[in-house]
C-alpha cells in the first residue's frame, strides 16, 4: 500500500529555460543508476529479506526513491516548459521532443529506454544488499557528473540534495547488510 502526498520532497527551483540540461537530467529519470531503477530495485527485493530491519530499510528507501523520481521529472519539466521550438532545435533535447514533446520519459541521456535489466533481485539478501550499496555509489557519481555540467544554480541546489541522500542510503544499506550477516552467523552456531 502507498499513500500519495501531493507535494515534492524538496523545494525545487529552476532558474532558466535550458533544454540541453533537461536532456542530461533525464539520465536520473530513466537511466541505469537513476531514481526509477533504484525504487523498483529496492521495492522488488523486499520479499526475500530475512530481517525486519532490512525489510524496513528497503521499503522506506524504495519509497523515497519514487519521491526523488518525481523531483527529477519536475526538474526536466521546468527546464523545458517555457521553451520555444527555436530554443529546442539544435539541442540534445530535440530528439526527445520529436517523440515525447515536453513530457519526461524514462530513458537515459543518450535516449536508451529504461530496462529492468538495470537491476536484479537475486533472492539472496547478501547479494542484493551489496548491489544496493553499489547502486547508491553509482547514483552519487552520476549526480556529481550532473552537478559538474549544470549551469543553473537552482538545479544544482536540488542535485546536491539528491546526491546527499545517496550517501545516507548507502549508510543505511551497510547497516542492514551487517544486521543480516550477524543474523546468518548466529544461525550457524545454534
Amino acid at each position, binding site marked *: 500500500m502507498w*499513500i*500519495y*502526498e*501531493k*507535494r*515534492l*520532497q*524538496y*523545494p*525545487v*527551483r*529552476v*532558474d532558466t529555460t535550458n533544454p540541453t540540461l533537461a536532456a542530461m537530467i533525464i539520465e536520473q529519470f530513466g537511466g541505469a543508476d537513476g531514481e526509477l531503477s533504484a525504487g523498483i530495485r529496492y521495492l522488488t527485493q523486499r520479499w526475500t529479506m530475512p530481517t525486519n*530491519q532490512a525489510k*524496513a*530499510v528497503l521499503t*522506506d*528507501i524504495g519509497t*523515497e526513491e519514487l519521491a526523488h523520481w*518525481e523531483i527529477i*521529472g*519536475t526538474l526536466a*519539466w*521546468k527546464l523545458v516548459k*517555457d521553451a520555444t521550438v527555436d530554443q529546442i532545435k539544435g539541442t540534445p533535447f530535440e530528439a526527445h521532443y520529436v517523440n515525447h514533446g515536453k513530457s519526461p520519459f524514462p530513458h537515459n541521456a543518450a535516449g536508451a529506454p529504461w530496462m529492468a535489466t538495470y537491476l536484479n533481485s537475486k533472492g539472496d539478501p547478501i547479494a542484493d544488499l551489496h548491489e544496493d550499496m553499489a547502486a547508491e555509489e553509482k547514483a552519487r557519481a552520476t549526480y556529481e557528473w550532473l552537478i559538474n555540467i549544470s549551469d543553473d544554480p*537552482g538545479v544544482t541546489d536540488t542535485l546536491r540534495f539528491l546526491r546527499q541522500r545517496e550517501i*545516507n*542510503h548507502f549508510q*543505511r544499506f551497510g*547497516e*542492514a547488510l551487517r*544486521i543480516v550477516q550477524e543474523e546468518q552467523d548466529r544461525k550457524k552456531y545454534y
Partner: protein
Amino acid sequence: MDKDFISKEQKKLLKEIMEANFVLVETNLYLDSHPTDEGALRLHNTYSQRYKELLSLYEAKYGLLRYTGMSGCPWSYINEPWPWEINFDVI
C-alpha cells in the same frame, strides 16, 4: 515569470510541512536500522506531532494533500497547485 498558483502564506506553510516531514524521513530510515535508539525515537515523536498539526492546519485552509483527509464540496484534493507547478524561487 511563472503563473503562481499559491500565495506566499500557503507556500510558507507547505515548506514547514516539507521540513517537518523530512525530519521524519530521516528518523524513519535511521530507526529502521537502530530501533532501540531512544534519542532518535524522541526526535521522531516530537516531529510526528508537529507534522500532524501542520498537515491538518494546511488541509483545513488550502485543501487536501492526502486523499485520506476530510473535504468540503467540491473535493479539494484536486485543487492547484500540483507538486510540479510550484515555484520555490520566490518565497
